[in-house]
């Protein structure tokens, strides 16, 4: 009856205890990173340095959500790479279009 490999529960009589410690740990990490982002938002001057900090903290949060909540960390290596490698295209598009935007801005401010 039970198709799930993790437990073999055949009847409702003995439901195992919940194992939620790791889940709450991930939750507190996410909350702490978000709180840290607000600290930087209010107490640090805006600029490239602050933006870099924000992006790094965002990537940390993304890692915890995808790896723990979405369980990708515990999947096979092949599945992890199947998901991660195509995302390199997004990074490429980002670098390409941000450079394009800066070039466009420079062109219209300098030549028109």
């Amino acid at each position, binding site marked *: 009856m039970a198709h799930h490999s993790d437990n073999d529960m055949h009847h409702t009589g003995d439901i195992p205890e919940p194992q939620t410690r790791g889940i709450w740990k991930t939750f507190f990490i996410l909350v702490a990173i*978000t709180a840290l982002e607000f600290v930087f938002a209010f107490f640090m001057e805006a600029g490239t340095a602050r933006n870099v900090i924000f992006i790094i903290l965002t990537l940390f949060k*993304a890692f915890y*959500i995808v790896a723990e909540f979405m369980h990708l960390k515990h999947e096979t290596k092949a599945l992890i790479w199947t998901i991660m490698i195509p995302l390199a295209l997004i990074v490429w598009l980002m670098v390409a279009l941000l450079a394009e935007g800066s070039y466009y801005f420079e062109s219209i401010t300098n030549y028109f």
Partner: protein
Amino acid sequence: MSSTSTTLEKPNSGTWDGGNEPLKASYGKLMMWFFLLSDAFTFGAFLIVYGLSRHTHLPYNGEPEAFAFSQQWWPIPEKVYNAFPGLHGMDLPLAFVALMTMILILSSVTMVLAVEAGHRMDKNDVQKWLLWTILFGATFLGCQAWEWAHFITGDEEGMLLADGSRIFGANLTVNQYGPPLFADLFFFITGFHGTHVFSGVVLLIMIFINTVNGVYHKRGHYEMVEKVGLYWHFVDLVWVFVFTFFYLI
């Protein structure tokens, strides 16, 4: 030939003979991952276009205290999103969006707890945590509706135009906070995300009804909860990025 009979007796088990599961994930979960990958491209494109538009506009270089809304430069997010329901006229930068972020992270946690309960075949716990997730998701949608209403209506000050008139609020062509493109991207990006949250809540209600009816218990596994969970976490993940690139930077 004699070899034919031996091949009929033994099932084929080579790499290309089928029946292999190189990714060790069920069909449904795999397809959900691929769908989410394609969705990540859509959201990635949206956010990258936001970055592109931002780089094509003048940034605000003056003192943050002296900031005023103008179509000349891209607005500072802290000055745009500083309202909180019930606290009219107070300058509370990013307070409301912080609350929304917390609600969505919390809904992600209750979703994992539902998945975890599903692994243990604990129907009551699955119901309980799904209900919490639906509640947080609906709350998030309500918050977003309020934020949109406020963004569209604008504040009393509005933006002073060169001809002496003032504009209030924002729509797709007029925007009191900055260049019209800023409002367009706000509507498209947060709107597309909100649509995802809405679909997620609908899916959650569907699997909640199925759980209550015992569909998954009879089936012997709660994999559908896991699949909707993947989608729900993805929506949370997108918000993490929207939050950083739209509200913080």
